[in-house]
């Protein structure tokens, strides 16, 4: 009697673990850019220069980039570095940012917009002010 109970319990547990594993592989978590390691480090000017060549989209696209430069514009949580890199910051609370400040950020490169000749980064966090 007790034997059958333990067997059922073990099967149930295994089934549960299996379901969790299947679910995790089917639905992986979203990337946490702030916690991921940096793929490339380069200045805002270098990044704009690089991304203006269309064949570079493949190299930097969706990669984690550490970039730095002077702030040339601020709109809400979006800052522009050196008139060329538009950074969408996840959280600006606790930071006082002003135009002209030098800043280093880490974010995901989503691509280059040739309409305004800007590189775009999102899910960015401030590394150093």
């Amino acid at each position: 009697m007790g034997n059958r109970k333990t067997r059922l319990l073990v099967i149930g547990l295994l089934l549960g673990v299996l379901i969790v594993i299947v679910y995790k592989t089917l639905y992986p978590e979203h990337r946490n850019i702030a916690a991921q390691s940096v793929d490339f480090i380069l200045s805002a000017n270098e990044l704009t220069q690089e991304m203006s060549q269309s064949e570079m989209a493949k190299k930097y696209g969706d990669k984690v980039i550490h970039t730095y430069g002077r702030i040339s514009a601020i709109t809400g949580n979006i800052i522009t570095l050196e008139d060329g890199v538009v950074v969408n910051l996840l959280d600006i609370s606790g930071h006082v940012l002003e135009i002209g400040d030098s800043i280093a950020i880490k974010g995901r490169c989503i691509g280059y917009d040739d309409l305004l000749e800007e590189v775009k980064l999102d899910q960015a966090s401030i590394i150093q002010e």
Partner: protein
Amino acid sequence: MPYFWTALLLLAKRMIKHTFLWISILIFSHELRAQKVISRQGHVAFFSYTSVENIKAENNQVLGIVDLQHGDIAVSMLMNAFIFEKALMREHFNESYVESDIFPKATFEGTIQDFDANQQEDQTRIVKGNFSMHGVTKELEIKARIEHVNENYIISGTFEAVVKDYEIKIPPLLAGNIAKTVSVDFRFECLPYED
């Protein structure tokens, strides 16, 4: 005497030339002042409804520029910036469907038909133009609503896009999960643009 007339004629000519120049500068600078409006955080979302599952993706970093004088509109969106509910959907979308490493963005270039930038009331207009995605360009006619609030213009609307039109291949296994036609919502809050 002939010399006097020649001199007078020259003077008159120069005055006319300068007047034209000044008038054109005046008109031109006046037009330049608020000729374009821009939206840097334009919103584009698409929805795919099937009996198996509903998929929704949003992009809040779409660029839109409107030339108020001619009603010309240019939109540019990066495919990588679409946010999905599930990370795997995003992966499939970027890697298999729109191939965003090869075709990183979608663009729309068109004209708002019969657009009147001075009209204060809301206007519903047809926007005619070319939409490019995944290396395919389609001519579209999209109905859009334009609200004019102070110096800002809010352009919004919905249209349907047929997945097959853009040569997007869905594996047979997932064919039931993704709609044949997705509905696309857009909203651009455009502010005056200075170069």
